[in-house]
Protein backbone atom coordinates (compact mmCIF):
# COMPACT_ATOMS: atom_id res chain seq x y z
CA UNK A 1 0.00 0.00 0.00
CA UNK A 2 1.73 3.16 -1.24
CA UNK A 3 1.20 6.24 0.89
CA UNK A 4 0.53 9.38 -1.16
CA UNK A 5 0.03 12.86 0.37
CA UNK A 6 -3.45 14.05 -0.52
CA UNK A 7 -2.32 17.63 -1.10
CA UNK A 8 0.10 16.89 -3.96
CA UNK A 9 -1.55 16.89 -7.40
CA UNK A 10 1.45 15.44 -9.22
CA UNK A 11 1.76 12.51 -6.80
CA UNK A 12 -2.00 11.85 -6.94
CA UNK A 13 -1.77 11.77 -10.71
CA UNK A 14 1.15 9.33 -10.92
CA UNK A 15 0.77 7.09 -7.86
CA UNK A 16 -0.29 3.95 -9.72
CA UNK A 17 2.51 3.89 -12.29
CA UNK A 18 4.97 2.41 -9.77
CA UNK A 19 3.01 -0.82 -9.54
CA UNK A 20 1.61 -0.86 -6.00
CA UNK A 21 -1.27 -3.17 -5.16
CA UNK A 22 -3.07 -0.25 -3.58
CA UNK A 23 -2.57 3.50 -3.19
CA UNK A 24 -3.50 5.29 -0.01
CA UNK A 25 -4.27 8.98 -0.41
CA UNK A 26 -3.67 10.64 2.92
CA UNK A 27 -5.93 13.40 4.19
CA UNK A 28 -4.72 13.03 7.79
CA UNK A 29 -1.15 13.44 8.99
CA UNK A 30 0.30 14.42 5.59
CA UNK A 31 -1.93 17.48 5.32
CA UNK A 32 -1.73 20.63 7.44
CA UNK A 33 -4.96 21.80 9.12
CA UNK A 34 -5.21 24.83 6.81
CA UNK A 35 -5.12 22.64 3.71
CA UNK A 36 -7.54 19.88 4.77
CA UNK A 37 -10.34 21.31 2.61
CA UNK A 38 -8.12 21.65 -0.45
CA UNK A 39 -6.66 18.16 -0.09
CA UNK A 40 -10.15 16.72 0.27
CA UNK A 41 -11.15 18.33 -3.04
CA UNK A 42 -7.96 17.10 -4.75
CA UNK A 43 -8.51 13.52 -3.61
CA UNK A 44 -12.21 13.69 -4.51
CA UNK A 45 -11.40 14.75 -8.06
CA UNK A 46 -8.51 12.31 -8.41
CA UNK A 47 -10.51 9.28 -7.27
CA UNK A 48 -13.46 10.31 -9.43
CA UNK A 49 -11.50 11.10 -12.58
CA UNK A 50 -8.14 9.36 -12.87
CA UNK A 51 -7.92 5.80 -14.20
CA UNK A 52 -5.69 4.00 -11.71
CA UNK A 53 -5.51 0.89 -13.89
CA UNK A 54 -7.09 -1.47 -11.37
CA UNK A 55 -4.93 -0.37 -8.43
CA UNK A 56 -7.08 -0.34 -5.31
CA UNK A 57 -7.83 3.21 -4.09
CA UNK A 58 -7.71 3.76 -0.36
CA UNK A 59 -8.16 7.10 1.41
CA UNK A 60 -7.04 7.76 4.95
CA UNK A 61 -9.61 10.16 6.35
CA UNK A 62 -9.28 12.33 9.41
CA UNK A 63 -10.60 11.11 12.71
CA UNK A 64 -14.34 11.41 13.21
CA UNK A 65 -13.54 13.05 16.55
CA UNK A 66 -12.37 16.17 14.70
CA UNK A 67 -13.98 18.65 12.28
CA UNK A 68 -12.87 16.99 9.04
CA UNK A 69 -13.63 13.28 9.20
CA UNK A 70 -17.31 13.28 8.24
CA UNK A 71 -16.77 15.61 5.29
CA UNK A 72 -13.82 13.49 4.15
CA UNK A 73 -16.04 10.41 4.15
CA UNK A 74 -18.86 12.20 2.29
CA UNK A 75 -16.47 13.37 -0.41
CA UNK A 76 -14.50 10.19 -1.06
CA UNK A 77 -17.47 7.82 -0.91
CA UNK A 78 -19.17 10.01 -3.52
CA UNK A 79 -16.01 9.99 -5.62
CA UNK A 80 -15.95 6.19 -5.70
CA UNK A 81 -13.26 5.17 -3.21
CA UNK A 82 -12.66 1.45 -2.69
CA UNK A 83 -11.55 1.47 0.95
CA UNK A 84 -11.46 4.08 3.70
CA UNK A 85 -8.62 3.82 6.19
CA UNK A 86 -9.49 4.92 9.70
CA UNK A 87 -6.66 6.42 11.74
CA UNK A 88 -6.04 5.81 15.44
CA UNK A 89 -8.76 3.22 15.96
CA UNK A 90 -9.11 2.54 19.67
CA UNK A 91 -12.38 0.64 19.89
CA UNK A 92 -15.04 -1.28 18.05
CA UNK A 93 -17.24 1.78 18.53
CA UNK A 94 -14.82 3.85 16.41
CA UNK A 95 -15.30 1.41 13.54
CA UNK A 96 -19.08 1.27 13.92
CA UNK A 97 -19.33 5.07 13.93
CA UNK A 98 -17.36 5.17 10.70
CA UNK A 99 -19.50 2.37 9.28
CA UNK A 100 -22.63 4.45 9.98
CA UNK A 101 -21.10 7.53 8.33
CA UNK A 102 -20.11 5.53 5.26
CA UNK A 103 -23.58 3.97 5.03
CA UNK A 104 -25.15 7.42 5.10
CA UNK A 105 -22.78 8.63 2.39
CA UNK A 106 -23.53 5.58 0.22
CA UNK A 107 -27.27 6.29 0.49
CA UNK A 108 -26.85 9.97 -0.35
CA UNK A 109 -24.81 9.36 -3.47
CA UNK A 110 -26.59 6.22 -4.59
CA UNK A 111 -23.77 3.71 -4.17
CA UNK A 112 -24.56 0.11 -3.44
CA UNK A 113 -24.74 -0.49 0.34
CA UNK A 114 -21.55 -2.10 1.57
CA UNK A 115 -19.58 -1.17 -1.55
CA UNK A 116 -17.01 0.78 0.45
CA UNK A 117 -14.59 -1.19 2.61
CA UNK A 118 -12.95 -0.08 5.84
CA UNK A 119 -9.39 -0.60 7.04
CA UNK A 120 -8.76 0.21 10.70
CA UNK A 121 -5.32 1.39 11.77
CA UNK A 122 -4.52 0.61 15.39
CA UNK A 123 -1.94 3.02 16.77
CA UNK A 124 -2.10 2.88 20.56
CA UNK A 125 -1.66 0.51 23.48
CA UNK A 126 -5.38 0.72 24.21
CA UNK A 127 -6.21 -0.08 20.60
CA UNK A 128 -3.94 -3.12 20.59
CA UNK A 129 -5.47 -4.41 23.81
CA UNK A 130 -8.92 -4.21 22.17
CA UNK A 131 -7.81 -5.24 18.67
CA UNK A 132 -9.81 -8.48 18.80
CA UNK A 133 -13.06 -6.53 19.23
CA UNK A 134 -11.99 -4.00 16.61
CA UNK A 135 -11.28 -6.72 14.05
CA UNK A 136 -14.74 -8.22 14.52
CA UNK A 137 -16.68 -4.98 14.67
CA UNK A 138 -17.97 -4.51 11.13
CA UNK A 139 -18.81 -6.43 7.99
CA UNK A 140 -17.14 -3.63 6.04
CA UNK A 141 -13.76 -4.21 7.66
CA UNK A 142 -11.38 -5.71 5.10
CA UNK A 143 -8.32 -5.46 7.31
CA UNK A 144 -6.51 -3.95 10.24
CA UNK A 145 -3.12 -2.30 10.29
CA UNK A 146 -0.60 -1.29 12.89
CA UNK A 147 0.66 2.31 13.00
CA UNK A 148 4.03 1.92 14.66
CA UNK A 149 5.14 5.53 15.07
CA UNK A 150 2.15 6.54 17.20
CA UNK A 151 2.15 3.19 18.97
CA UNK A 152 5.76 3.34 20.18
CA UNK A 153 5.23 6.93 21.29
CA UNK A 154 2.21 5.81 23.31
CA UNK A 155 4.37 3.02 24.77
CA UNK A 156 7.04 5.52 25.86
CA UNK A 157 9.69 3.93 23.68
CA UNK A 158 11.21 4.28 20.21
CA UNK A 159 11.54 2.08 17.15
CA UNK A 160 14.55 -0.19 16.97
CA UNK A 161 16.20 -2.14 14.17
CA UNK A 162 14.92 -5.52 15.38
CA UNK A 163 11.46 -4.20 16.29
CA UNK A 164 11.27 -5.96 19.65
CA UNK A 165 9.09 -3.15 20.98
CA UNK A 166 6.49 -4.04 18.34
CA UNK A 167 6.61 -7.82 18.59
CA UNK A 168 3.67 -8.34 20.90
CA UNK A 169 1.52 -5.70 19.18
CA UNK A 170 2.24 -7.09 15.73
CA UNK A 171 1.44 -10.63 16.84
CA UNK A 172 -1.78 -9.59 18.58
CA UNK A 173 -2.88 -7.69 15.48
CA UNK A 174 -2.26 -10.63 13.16
CA UNK A 175 -4.04 -13.03 15.54
CA UNK A 176 -7.04 -10.72 15.72
CA UNK A 177 -7.12 -10.45 11.93
CA UNK A 178 -6.97 -14.23 11.52
CA UNK A 179 -9.69 -14.69 14.15
CA UNK A 180 -11.97 -12.27 12.28
CA UNK A 181 -11.06 -13.56 8.83
CA UNK A 182 -9.65 -10.25 7.59
CA UNK A 183 -6.25 -9.02 6.43
CA UNK A 184 -3.38 -7.66 8.49
CA UNK A 185 -1.04 -4.93 7.26
CA UNK A 186 2.32 -4.00 8.70
CA UNK A 187 3.53 -0.48 9.36
CA UNK A 188 5.72 1.81 7.27
CA UNK A 189 9.52 1.81 7.31
CA UNK A 190 10.58 5.43 7.24
CA UNK A 191 14.26 5.19 6.24
CA UNK A 192 14.02 4.86 2.46
CA UNK A 193 17.82 4.70 2.17
CA UNK A 194 18.15 1.58 4.33
CA UNK A 195 17.20 -1.13 1.86
CA UNK A 196 18.73 -3.93 3.89
CA UNK A 197 16.85 -2.92 7.02
CA UNK A 198 13.64 -2.60 5.07
CA UNK A 199 13.93 -6.08 3.58
CA UNK A 200 14.63 -7.50 7.06
CA UNK A 201 11.45 -5.88 8.34
CA UNK A 202 9.36 -7.12 5.41
CA UNK A 203 10.63 -10.66 6.00
CA UNK A 204 9.73 -10.37 9.68
CA UNK A 205 6.25 -9.13 8.79
CA UNK A 206 5.74 -12.00 6.38
CA UNK A 207 6.96 -14.53 8.94
CA UNK A 208 4.54 -13.14 11.53
CA UNK A 209 1.67 -13.62 9.08
CA UNK A 210 1.06 -10.10 7.78
CA UNK A 211 -0.66 -10.01 4.38
CA UNK A 212 1.12 -6.88 3.22
CA UNK A 213 2.90 -3.72 4.20
CA UNK A 214 2.51 0.03 3.84
CA UNK A 215 5.30 1.80 1.98
CA UNK A 216 6.18 5.46 1.69
CA UNK A 217 8.38 5.42 -1.43
CA UNK A 218 7.96 3.73 -4.82
CA UNK A 219 11.39 2.09 -4.44
CA UNK A 220 10.00 -0.04 -1.61
CA UNK A 221 7.23 -1.61 -3.71
CA UNK A 222 9.37 -4.08 -5.65
CA UNK A 223 11.17 -5.11 -2.47
CA UNK A 224 7.89 -6.05 -0.77
CA UNK A 225 6.77 -7.96 -3.85
CA UNK A 226 10.09 -9.83 -3.98
CA UNK A 227 9.74 -11.01 -0.37
CA UNK A 228 6.11 -12.03 -0.72
CA UNK A 229 6.32 -13.66 -4.14
CA UNK A 230 6.85 -17.42 -3.74
CA UNK A 231 10.07 -18.74 -5.23
CA UNK A 232 10.14 -21.45 -7.87
CA UNK A 233 11.05 -24.19 -5.39
CA UNK A 234 8.19 -23.16 -3.08
CA UNK A 235 5.75 -23.23 -5.96
CA UNK A 236 7.03 -26.62 -7.09
CA UNK A 237 6.65 -28.10 -3.62
CA UNK A 238 3.20 -26.55 -3.21
CA UNK A 239 2.05 -28.09 -6.48
CA UNK A 240 3.35 -31.50 -5.38
CA UNK A 241 1.50 -31.21 -2.07
CA UNK A 242 -1.74 -30.31 -3.85
CA UNK A 243 -1.28 -33.18 -6.30
CA UNK A 244 -0.69 -35.60 -3.45
CA UNK A 245 -3.82 -34.37 -1.68
CA UNK A 246 -5.88 -34.86 -4.83
CA UNK A 247 -4.46 -38.32 -5.38
CA UNK A 248 -5.39 -39.30 -1.84
CA UNK A 249 -8.90 -37.96 -2.39
CA UNK A 250 -9.18 -39.89 -5.62
CA UNK A 251 -8.18 -43.10 -3.82
CA UNK A 252 -10.70 -42.33 -1.09
CA UNK A 253 -7.93 -42.19 1.45
CA UNK A 254 -7.89 -39.71 4.29
CA UNK A 255 -4.10 -39.95 4.54
CA UNK A 256 -1.98 -37.75 2.30
CA UNK A 257 1.67 -38.65 1.95
CA UNK A 258 4.53 -37.16 -0.01
CA UNK A 259 8.11 -38.37 -0.10
CA UNK A 260 7.32 -40.78 2.69
CA UNK A 261 5.94 -38.10 4.96
CA UNK A 262 2.37 -37.58 6.09
CA UNK A 263 0.92 -34.28 4.91
CA UNK A 264 -1.56 -32.81 7.36
CA UNK A 265 -4.44 -30.57 6.39
CA UNK A 266 -2.63 -27.35 7.50
CA UNK A 267 0.21 -28.15 5.11
CA UNK A 268 -2.24 -28.52 2.25
CA UNK A 269 -3.80 -25.17 3.18
CA UNK A 270 -0.37 -23.52 3.25
CA UNK A 271 0.37 -24.97 -0.18
CA UNK A 272 -2.89 -23.54 -1.50
CA UNK A 273 -1.94 -20.14 -0.11
CA UNK A 274 1.49 -20.30 -1.78
CA UNK A 275 -0.13 -20.95 -5.14
CA UNK A 276 -2.67 -18.16 -4.56
CA UNK A 277 0.16 -15.71 -3.85
CA UNK A 278 2.05 -16.98 -6.88
CA UNK A 279 -0.97 -16.41 -9.12
CA UNK A 280 -1.54 -12.93 -7.65
CA UNK A 281 2.08 -12.00 -8.34
CA UNK A 282 1.80 -13.11 -11.94
CA UNK A 283 4.22 -15.99 -11.53
CA UNK A 284 4.02 -18.71 -14.15
CA UNK A 285 2.45 -21.79 -12.59
CA UNK A 286 2.80 -24.50 -15.18
CA UNK A 287 -0.02 -26.99 -15.31
CA UNK A 288 -1.27 -25.95 -11.90
CA UNK A 289 -3.85 -28.16 -10.23
Amino acid at each position, binding site marked *: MLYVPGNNPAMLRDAHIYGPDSVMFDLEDAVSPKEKDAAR*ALVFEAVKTIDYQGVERVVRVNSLDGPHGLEDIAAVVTAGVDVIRLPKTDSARDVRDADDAVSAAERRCGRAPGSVGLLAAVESAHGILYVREIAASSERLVGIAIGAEDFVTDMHTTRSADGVELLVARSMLVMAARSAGIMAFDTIFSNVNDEEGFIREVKLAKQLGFDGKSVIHPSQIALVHAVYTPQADEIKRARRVISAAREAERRGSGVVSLDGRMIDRPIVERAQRVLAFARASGADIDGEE
Partner: protein
Amino acid sequence: MKIAGAGTAGTAESGDVLVVVEPSEQGIRIEMTGPSVSGFGTEIEDAVRGTLAALGVDAASVRLSEKGALDCTIRARLIAACGRAAAEENETAPGIPWEVLP
Protein backbone atom coordinates in the same frame (compact mmCIF):
# COMPACT_ATOMS: atom_id res chain seq x y z
CA MET B 1 -23.06 29.34 -2.70
CA LYS B 2 -22.41 33.07 -2.43
CA ILE B 3 -18.92 34.41 -2.98
CA ALA B 4 -18.62 36.99 -0.23
CA GLY B 5 -14.88 37.46 -0.04
CA ALA B 6 -11.62 36.31 -1.58
CA GLY B 7 -10.58 32.67 -1.57
CA THR B 8 -7.29 31.22 -2.84
CA ALA B 9 -6.24 27.62 -3.36
CA GLY B 10 -3.39 25.85 -5.09
CA THR B 11 0.26 26.53 -5.76
CA ALA B 12 2.61 27.57 -8.53
CA GLU B 13 4.18 24.10 -8.62
CA SER B 14 4.38 22.09 -11.81
CA GLY B 15 1.20 20.09 -12.30
CA ASP B 16 -0.81 22.46 -10.11
CA VAL B 17 -2.86 25.62 -10.55
CA LEU B 18 -3.27 28.73 -8.42
CA VAL B 19 -6.90 29.81 -8.25
CA VAL B 20 -8.21 33.07 -6.81
CA VAL B 21 -11.96 33.58 -6.46
CA GLU B 22 -13.43 36.96 -5.57
CA PRO B 23 -16.86 38.57 -5.57
CA SER B 24 -18.22 39.92 -8.82
CA GLU B 25 -21.17 42.14 -9.63
CA GLN B 26 -21.07 41.14 -13.28
CA GLY B 27 -21.84 37.44 -13.24
CA ILE B 28 -18.99 35.00 -13.98
CA ARG B 29 -15.64 36.45 -15.11
CA ILE B 30 -12.71 34.16 -15.85
CA GLU B 31 -9.06 35.01 -16.48
CA MET B 32 -6.64 32.22 -17.31
CA THR B 33 -2.86 32.06 -17.77
CA GLY B 34 -0.47 29.17 -18.20
CA PRO B 35 1.13 26.88 -20.78
CA SER B 36 -2.03 24.82 -21.38
CA VAL B 37 -4.37 27.73 -21.95
CA SER B 38 -3.54 28.29 -25.62
CA GLY B 39 -4.30 24.69 -26.54
CA PHE B 40 -6.96 23.79 -23.97
CA GLY B 41 -8.44 27.11 -22.97
CA THR B 42 -11.95 26.16 -24.04
CA GLU B 43 -11.87 22.90 -22.10
CA ILE B 44 -10.50 24.65 -19.02
CA GLU B 45 -13.18 27.32 -19.17
CA ASP B 46 -15.88 24.67 -19.57
CA ALA B 47 -14.55 22.87 -16.50
CA VAL B 48 -14.58 26.11 -14.52
CA ARG B 49 -18.10 27.09 -15.56
CA GLY B 50 -19.45 23.59 -14.97
CA THR B 51 -18.00 23.46 -11.47
CA LEU B 52 -19.26 26.94 -10.59
CA ALA B 53 -22.73 26.02 -11.79
CA ALA B 54 -22.75 22.81 -9.73
CA LEU B 55 -21.69 24.80 -6.67
CA GLY B 56 -24.51 27.27 -7.28
CA VAL B 57 -22.13 30.16 -7.87
CA ASP B 58 -23.67 32.62 -10.32
CA ALA B 59 -21.39 35.58 -9.67
CA ALA B 60 -17.64 35.35 -9.22
CA SER B 61 -14.36 36.63 -10.56
CA VAL B 62 -12.05 33.68 -11.15
CA ARG B 63 -8.33 34.04 -11.91
CA LEU B 64 -6.33 30.93 -12.50
CA SER B 65 -2.66 30.45 -13.29
CA GLU B 66 -1.91 26.87 -14.24
CA LYS B 67 1.35 24.94 -14.67
CA GLY B 68 0.20 21.95 -16.69
CA ALA B 69 -2.55 20.97 -14.27
CA LEU B 70 -5.02 18.25 -15.16
CA ASP B 71 -8.70 19.21 -15.42
CA CYS B 72 -9.39 17.36 -12.18
CA THR B 73 -6.77 19.44 -10.39
CA ILE B 74 -8.24 22.67 -11.75
CA ARG B 75 -11.72 21.64 -10.60
CA ALA B 76 -10.41 20.66 -7.17
CA ARG B 77 -8.58 23.93 -6.61
CA LEU B 78 -11.64 25.85 -7.76
CA ILE B 79 -13.87 23.93 -5.31
CA ALA B 80 -11.50 24.76 -2.46
CA ALA B 81 -11.14 28.42 -3.45
CA CYS B 82 -14.93 28.85 -3.69
CA GLY B 83 -15.40 27.22 -0.32
CA ARG B 84 -12.88 29.57 1.22
CA ALA B 85 -14.38 32.60 -0.53
CA ALA B 86 -17.86 31.71 0.69
CA ALA B 87 -16.52 31.21 4.22
CA GLU B 88 -15.51 34.87 4.48
CA GLU B 89 -19.08 35.75 5.41
CA ASN B 90 -19.97 32.58 7.34
CA GLU B 91 -18.28 31.32 10.45
CA THR B 92 -17.61 27.99 8.75
CA ALA B 93 -17.30 27.16 5.09
CA PRO B 94 -20.53 25.94 3.50
CA GLY B 95 -20.79 22.27 2.71
CA ILE B 96 -19.68 21.18 -0.74
CA PRO B 97 -22.42 19.34 -2.68
CA TRP B 98 -20.16 16.43 -3.67
CA GLU B 99 -23.01 14.45 -5.21
CA VAL B 100 -23.78 17.03 -7.89
CA LEU B 101 -20.29 18.04 -8.94
CA PRO B 102 -19.44 17.16 -12.56
